[in-house]
């Protein structure tokens, strides 16, 4: 019998590049902002564009986060997510129009109260819609991507048509609440107030979502469910119920995003959900399906890219985002922050 060979385990220290690697996507946002600064060459317009890019990114994030979680949790791809955006916008705008005396008053409190009421109404309606959508449309087609895409697309068509039935076929123009109109000047750059508010709301939502996902028990179950649903099920949690909860929350967030987007554009159409879904898909793909952090970074990148190129070369705004998607998928084929699936 021979002795075991001399064995001295050694922890290899990771090089800086290796330690930086997981955080690379995070650095992309400042890198893009810097590139925008160099390309635009006018600091004031750059600042304006950056703020509106961030605002747009935040709104896209609010819409996309629900979709990416729904996919991560149950492998359900919901092409009808845009329907919640449109419905949310229409409900929210109807409430705002009803509360015209509050939105017209030059008082920030009243304006914000009206905005909050509109958002609550929109989220309640789209949340309920999400519940029904999950029950009627999505539940029978678990496990088949092809059928999911087809059926949710059908759901989107029907929902869009329902908007036409309820609100008529015309687009609705909506003014922002009195105190959110206009702009303020910082360093000579004009920043629209509403965009700053949108950035604020989006950032708070992101932090809140992160806190829920990282700090609470339900968040733990959701994150575990994204990685391995069978195991969570085996532990005795009703994963379907968690999924319905996430689906409803995601739909409500899409409704919120719809109200924010409607006020941003100051015009809503039944088709707006479908239009914004194109950017949402790009965000969800480059973020990595199922990852909230990736979705956040992706949304900011897409929002900034859209605004910078719209300024530099208006015709190429959407093309530039597709180029961004191509570049990122070349770099990381599973998206920037892929969710590790234990399968």
């Amino acid at each position, binding site marked *: 019998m021979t002795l075991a060979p001399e064995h001295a385990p050694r922890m290899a220290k990771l090089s800086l590049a290796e330690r930086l690697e997981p955080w690379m996507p995070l650095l992309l946002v400042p890198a893009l902002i810097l590139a925008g600064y160099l390309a635009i060459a006018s600091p004031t317009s750059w600042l304006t564009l950056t703020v509106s890019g961030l605002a747009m990114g935040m709104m896209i994030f609010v819409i996309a986060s629900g979709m990416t979680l729904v996919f991560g949790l149950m492998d359900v791809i919901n092409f009808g997510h845009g329907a919640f955006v449109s419905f949310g916008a229409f409900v929210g705008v109807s409430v705002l129009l009803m509360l015209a005396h509050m939105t017209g008053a030059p008082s920030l409190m009243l304006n914000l109260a009206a905005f909050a009421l509109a958002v609550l109404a929109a989220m309640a309606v789209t949340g309920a819609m999400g519940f029904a959508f999950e029950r009627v449309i999505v539940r029978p087609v678990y496990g088949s991507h092809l059928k999911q895409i087809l059926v949710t697309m059908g759901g989107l068509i029907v929902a869009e*048509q329902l908007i036409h039935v309820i609100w008529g076929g015309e687009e609705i123009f909506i003014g922002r609440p009195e105190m959110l109109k206009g702009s303020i000047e910082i360093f000579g750059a004009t920043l629209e107030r509403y965009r700053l508010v949108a950035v604020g709301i989006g950032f708070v939502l992101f932090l809140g979502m992160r806190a829920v996902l990282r700090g609470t028990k339900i968040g733990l179950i959701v994150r575990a469910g994204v990685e391995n649903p069978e195991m969570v099920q085996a532990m005795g949690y009703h994963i379907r119920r968690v999924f319905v909860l996430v689906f409803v929350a995601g739909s409500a967030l899409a409704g919120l995003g719809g109200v924010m987007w409607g006020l941003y554009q100051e015009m809503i159409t039944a088709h707006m959900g479908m239009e914004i*879904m*194109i950017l949402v898909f790009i965000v969800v793909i480059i973020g990595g399906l199922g990852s909230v952090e990736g979705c956040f970074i992706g949304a900011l990148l897409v929002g900034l890219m859209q605004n910078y190129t719209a300024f530099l070369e*208006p*015709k190429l705004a959407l093309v530039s985002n597709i180029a961004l998607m191509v570049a990122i998928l070349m770099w990381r084929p*599973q998206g920037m922050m892929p969710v590790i699936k234990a399968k």
Partner: protein
Amino acid sequence: MVRLLLSGDRPQSVLLGALLLTILVCLAFAPFLFPGTRSLETAARICIFIVLVASYDLLLGYAGIVSFAHTMFFGMGAYGVAIATQRMGTGYDALAVGTAAGAGLAAVFAFLIALFSLRVRAIFFAMITLAVASAVAVLVSQLSAITGGEDGMNIRIPRELTPAFRPFDGPVLGLNVNGRVLNYYLVFVSCLVLFLLMLRIVNSPFGRVLQAIRENAFRAEAIGYRVVFYRAAATVISAVVASLAGAIFAIWLRYVGPATTLGVEIMLDILLIVVIGGMGTMYGAVVGTAAFVLAQNYLRDWMGGASEATSFLPLVPDLLNPDRWLMWLGILFILSVYFFPTGMVGRLRGVR
């Protein structure tokens, strides 16, 4: 002979066979059976959409890939013809060059998108095609120097294909044959050839492999078929056929515009027809398109009547408004995905 033409893929049902034969006869003799501009327009539209929908079915029904860029390829063919005739002048050579250029561009685009997204993850394909198609639609409507922008382009086709041309002195079988009728037969014959060609493709060993991949991609890969290669090839074939249909459409309509070729509505129409007609069978495209186009043209009138008749009720007239017919179609679509995944053809084959 018939067996050879149909590539051994028989309708398998008397009812379906009779229906297909009726559609074929009606389309073949449309100018004689249904004189009038509107019905000729309808017949040509049915021919072209049969090819377009069948090429989409090749992708969706046979290969199990959802694409939202099919109208983009359709538009490439149409714009190819339009731009070529604008640059090269009126003539058959311009039509041929435009068609070939459109088909080539469609093939290159389809190949790139397929390689890029199918390699990564099959479900990315649906999302990426949606994004690319809308980017192309935006570009087409903005690059007005090349494409005519939102206004679109008028196409000048050779004189032999226009209503002004009269090949015969007197009426033939009671019809004054003019260039428009010749143009219709150009459309009809090219669509028939393309359709039979696709029937050949899906019933070849290649088509069988596609179906195997649709059923179980993992297993097909394990047996030794390169799944990515087959999926990419299906995408390219379907894109080229769609662009050819677009070229025919442009020659027939003598006009292209973003709304008539690239619109989201047309994409949704194609999707609805494939699913309602029957996925995974070429005959579904024929039956579905015929039913859809006829319904589009005539059912809407009926809905308008019903809407007026119920005008005393709340909300019902809005639901029955002819503009809302897409909603009913959407509901029918969802129901057919759940309950009749084989569509109308599957139903017809069930009743022997």
